């Protein structure tokens, strides 16, 4: 038995491992407590809630304890087993097995006794298969779920495994190789760091267990602080529309640039969790925000990424051309940056499914590469060794460098993330139209002087590079402070406390985007559950009452289904609509309306009885002599094509006297988005007209959604008009009056042009057209919408809509209830 265990789990380290002393046992439990506190703080302070990692604490913390008590040779297996448990918990049995299989297969191929070239060919074939599944050339739902995760784990690690294999450096220990792929932080953070294979496999047991855990805890604490800092900056971030002068431009650029805190924080957390299991990984970052030159910035900003590029691009290129060219250094550096662009795009492709092709993406890397090349000289002194007896002017020089580097990086960052070069130029021009520069210059001057002094003090006191050494007492102190902070009352009116303690609310800029794209938040529910570790409850529960179909409806309600979502309930009737029961045959005396709408009319976020359709129906029946039935055929995300399909396949069977069609702001843009989803999902477009549009626009299923949208945009007016015409035609053929009602969204600043976008095609299609004007009576969006990140109307919002809707229907001049 022992022999079998020894064979299965061979020794990894040569040093003898003694029994743990009482002090060490106590330290392990204290470490487990500290680790649990990290998870607790993440949950309590709403740090990266979408990652779902705090839900895995109940597996990770006990696994950490087991790992800490076990001998080093068992630790990689325990680490890999933790991953497996987390996979099954997060994905279920079937998808879990598929994901594990998708990771084991390439590992088995890599370690198999076949020639290296053959392995490379096999890996390329394997990635080609993943590519087919990722772009959904072949759509298999379960694979669509697991491929982003498998690819995010394999995309760089397979390259590194093959690289080391080429030079005979692959570790023979199976469990170490497995642990290299089976890394649980990857399940929560798809943009997990590219940690080096050799650094990983050689790191275990390299130093004392407690020393390694102290480092892990320090990384985790730094990760928490960075992410909380990002929360704070994000809560006060500027919108692009607020840029009016140099000060607002500066704050806009700065708040955007501070996304690096989020990236750094999540990578710190990932590395912290891995290190906690005994893998003594190097620090992923230096204090790059204090880098005095671009080359120093590049050295510190993402050390793992830089190591990866050096290994697979820079050194191989340099050594192959150094005897042929005097510019070998510059050529290899330039190629390293070019590949940095390529690998970033490659990474984004596997995670998002679309290849980013904006020119500013490529230009960003070229400009950064040029800046690094210009400042990277062999004569540059080793800055971090430059302690002790240094003159003050060096600190002044360093502060000037820091200011220049960070200002440039903030501008470059915006250039990288902007929609295009024209947007970048527009915003920069708006900000640089110098009106009042003095507050900005004073602030910059103050920062510069403070930094010079700080640098001087830090150098004198030798407190540099805080990321490299562990400080267990300081870690404990920070955890204690954060715990105290987490129990504070956020409702004191203190903006700082609210920003830190409450869930992140959308920034001004993102709120604008959310208002524009609130439909997408529903439509992209599929993406949500594909890409987050735990399905958000709302979408999870929606799946219980809805049926996804690969036809023009895409989504419909199940019959007689009930689901509680957060604090409201959705109940459907025997017709499969969110409404009360009606008789199939319409009673003679009844005026029956078929209401075709989207998430607003469906009542996303409120109970059945609070949906404005339901309130209006009740009010009409109370106040009018004639009974009225409003059958609600609405569904979140529906566009006029869905409404047409719902009318023809379902609503018409219930013999309505009138059809009320609802439209909202930004109808065309979201229409484009949903039509693109038809193409991506390979839906049969059914109607000749739609098939012709597909052919004329040249859209294909394998194209990115962005490309499809772009190609469809010129045709979208035609599609909208066609949909309205078909609805109108169907209604006329059945003697039904069809009306289109424009309902503004809760945060609309209504303009005539937005209404015209819908009114013109509707009237041309012979639909009656009404606008529910001033429906919200000037009440602010936050009081009548579900929440800061969900602009759907709340109970009060629905009450207001119901009132306006009732008035519209009850007004005899409108003749909406006339047969």
């Amino acid at each position: 038995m022992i022999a079998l265990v020894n064979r299965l789990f061979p020794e990894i380290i040569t040093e003898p491992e003694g029994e743990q002393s009482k002090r060490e046992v106590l330290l392990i439990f204290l470490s487990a407590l500290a680790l649990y506190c990290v998870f607790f703080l993440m949950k309590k302070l709403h740090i990266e809630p979408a990652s779902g990692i705090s839900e895995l604490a109940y597996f990770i913390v006990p696994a950490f304890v087991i790992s800490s008590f076990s001998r080093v040779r068992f630790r990689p297996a325990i680490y890999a087993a933790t991953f497996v448990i987390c996979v099954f918990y997060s994905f279920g049995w079937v998808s879990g097995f598929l994901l594990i299989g998708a990771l084991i297969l390439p590992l088995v191929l890599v370690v198999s006794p076949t020639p290296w070239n053959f392995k490379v060919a096999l890996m390329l074939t394997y990635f080609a298969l993943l590519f087919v599944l990722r772009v959904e050339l072949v759509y298999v739902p379960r694979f669509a779920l697991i491929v982003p995760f498998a690819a995010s784990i394999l995309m760089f690690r397979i390259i590194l495994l093959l690289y080391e294999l080429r030079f005979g450096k692959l570790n023979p220990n199976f469990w170490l190789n497995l642990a290299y792929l089976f890394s649980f932080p990857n399940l929560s953070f798809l943009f997990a760091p590219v940690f080096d294979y050799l650094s990983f496999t050689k790191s275990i047991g390299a130093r004392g267990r407690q020393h390694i855990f102290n480092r892990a805890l320090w990384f985790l604490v730094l990760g928490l602080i960075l992410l909380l800092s990002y929360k704070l900056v994000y809560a006060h971030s500027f919108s692009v529309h607020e840029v009016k002068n140099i000060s607002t431009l500066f704050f806009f650029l700065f708040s955007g640039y501070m996304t690096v805190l989020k990236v750094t924080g999540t990578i710190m957390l990932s590395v912290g969790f891995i290190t906690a299991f005994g893998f003594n990984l190097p620090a992923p970052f230096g204090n790059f925000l204090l880098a005095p030159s671009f080359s120093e910035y590049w050295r510190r900003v993402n050390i793992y990424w830089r190591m990866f590029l050096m290994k697979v691009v820079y050194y191989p290129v340099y050594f192959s051309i150094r005897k042929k060219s005097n510019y070998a250094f510059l050529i290899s550096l330039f190629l390293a940056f070019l590949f940095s662009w390529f690998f970033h795009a490659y990474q984004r492709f596997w995670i998002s499914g679309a290849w980013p092709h904006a020119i500013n993406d490529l230009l960003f890397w070229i400009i950064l590469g040029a800046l690094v090349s210009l400042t990277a000289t062999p004569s540059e002194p080793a800055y971090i060794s430059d302690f002790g007896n240094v003159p003050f002017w060096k600190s002044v020089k360093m502060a000037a460098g820091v200011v220049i580097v960070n200002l440039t990086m903030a501008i470059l960052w915006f250039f990288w993330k902007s929609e295009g070069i024209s947007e970048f130029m527009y915003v920069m021009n708006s900000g640089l139209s110098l009106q009042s520069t003095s507050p900005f210059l004073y602030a910059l001057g103050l920062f510069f002087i403070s930094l010079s002094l700080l640098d001087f003090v830090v150098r004198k006191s030798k407190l540099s590079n805080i990321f490299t050494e562990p400080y267990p007492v300081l870690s404990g102190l920070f955890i204690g402070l954060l715990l105290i902070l987490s129990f504070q009352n956020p409702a004191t009116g203190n903006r700082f406390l609210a920003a830190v303690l409450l869930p992140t609310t959308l920034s001004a800029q993102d709120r604008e985007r959310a208002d524009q794209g609130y439909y997408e938040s529903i439509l992209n529910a599929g993406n949500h559950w594909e890409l987050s570790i735990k399905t958000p409850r709302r979408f999870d529960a929606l799946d219980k009452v809805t049926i996804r179909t690969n036809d023009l409806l895409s989504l419909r309600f199940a019959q007689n289904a009930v689901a509680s979502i957060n604090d409201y309930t959705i109940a459907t009737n025997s017709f499969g609509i969110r409404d009360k029961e009606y008789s199939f045959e319409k009673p003679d005396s009844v005026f029956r309306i078929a209401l075709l709408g989207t998430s607003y009319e469906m009542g996303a976020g409120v109970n059945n009885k609070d949906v404005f359709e339901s309130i209006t129906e009740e009010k009409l029946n109370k106040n009018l002599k004639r009974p009225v039935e409003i059958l609600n055929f609405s569904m979140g995300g529906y566009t006029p094509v869905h409404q047409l399909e719902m009318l023809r396949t379902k609503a018409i069977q219930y013999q309505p006297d009138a059809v009320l069609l609802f439209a909202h702001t930004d109808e065309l843009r979201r229409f484009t988005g949903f039509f693109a989803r038809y193409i991506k999902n390979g839906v049969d477009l059914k109607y000749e007209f739609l098939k012709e549009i597909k052919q004329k626009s040249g859209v294909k299923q394998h194209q990115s959604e962005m490309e499809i949208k772009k190609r469809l945009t010129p045709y979208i007016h035609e599609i909208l008009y066609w949909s309205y015409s078909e609805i109108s035609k169907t209604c006329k053929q059945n003697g039904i009056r069809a009306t289109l009602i424009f309902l503004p969204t809760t945060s609309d600043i209504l303009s005539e042009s937005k209404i015209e976008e819908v009114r013109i095609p509707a009237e041309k299609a012979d639909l009656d057209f009404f606008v529910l004007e001033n429906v919200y009576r000037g009440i602010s969006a936050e009081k009548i919408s579900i929440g800061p990140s969900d602009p759907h109307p709340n109970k009060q919002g629905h009450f207001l809509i119901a009132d306006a809707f009732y008035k519209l229907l009850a007004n005899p001049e409108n003749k909406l209830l006339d047969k």
Partner: protein
Amino acid sequence: MEKEQLAAEVKLYIALHVFHNRVPADFDEDTPLVSTRLLDSIVTLNMITHFENMLGIEFRAHEVSVENLDTVRIFTNFLLQKMQP
């Protein structure tokens, strides 16, 4: 070349090109150089070229790694290994 002599050459090179002659008191043959980012890529490549020319050896790209360069002792041993026929 003897091991001690070679180690002294490596130390001297690092003292001149990494520390610019202001060598910290605690610098010794086991001070990590790559993992602490004291040795950047340019200095590393220059150092490799210097010792290639001095010892008549040739490095390959995959040999430029922490495991061969991290300390004076490790680098010296690696150079000696490369010098063996």
